[in-house]
């Protein structure tokens, strides 16, 4: 039960960060925090059902590593174009 509460608190911290910060890298950091909270939950439930939970946590780790690799590549590209990684500047599709 404690683990579930902890993971809920961490997830909410991550959500607050993702919604309130404007810098792209900070938003990515917040998303990582949320993914880790989810992983904690999955691993905790694996203690009660079967080890599948750990495998899902493993997949979450791999997927979030891929997410960071792709996201940082996009931010680096944006930095080359605009000289800063501010999410308010990403409005090319606005028309």
């Amino acid at each position: 039960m404690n683990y579930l509460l902890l993971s809920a608190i961490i997830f909410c911290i991550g959500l607050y960060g993702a919604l309130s910060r404007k810098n792209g890298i900070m938003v990515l950091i917040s998303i990582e925090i949320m993914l880790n909270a989810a992983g904690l939950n999955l691993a905790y439930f694996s203690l009660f059902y079967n080890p599948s939970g750990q495998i899902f946590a493993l997949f979450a780790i791999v997927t979030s590593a891929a997410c960071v690799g792709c996201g940082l590549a996009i931010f680096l590209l944006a930095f080359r174009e605009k000289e800063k990684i501010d999410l308010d500047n990403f409005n090319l599709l606005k028309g």
Partner: protein
Amino acid sequence: MDVGFYVLGFLAIASAMLAISLKSLVRAVMALALFFLSIGGLYINMSCEFLGFVQILIYVGGVIVLFLFVIMTSGNIEPGKSNWILRLFGLLSSLLLFLALVWASKPFTFTRLKRFSGIKEIGNLLMTQYLIQFEVVSLLLLVVLIGSIMLLKKE
């Protein structure tokens, strides 16, 4: 009373708060590294040793170093000033989510599995039941590798 849980849990919450609130990007990433370490410690504390070490190996060794590399090449830029509407909105929605989570989680009555599922069991599951997912994840990694090279390639 699980001392390891309380110490590591406090560390995780404190470092997560630091990571989203620090102004300097590198310091925020270092706080994130501490957060990943404490989550790894929590995994080990709940006797998922394999998951804990993989967490430290991939997050601290890969993700954090990648973050630092990008910050070094693009400069330790001051994060954009966020206005109070965004902050209020973020605070409200995260509080609402927290309340919803607490309300939704009923005290459950599963019994803890007797035997710890070791690395052998995880390996067996990965190679039998979850084989397709495993392959798809490896394909995903390949796609990300090629995709990020294509994105950053100079003409």
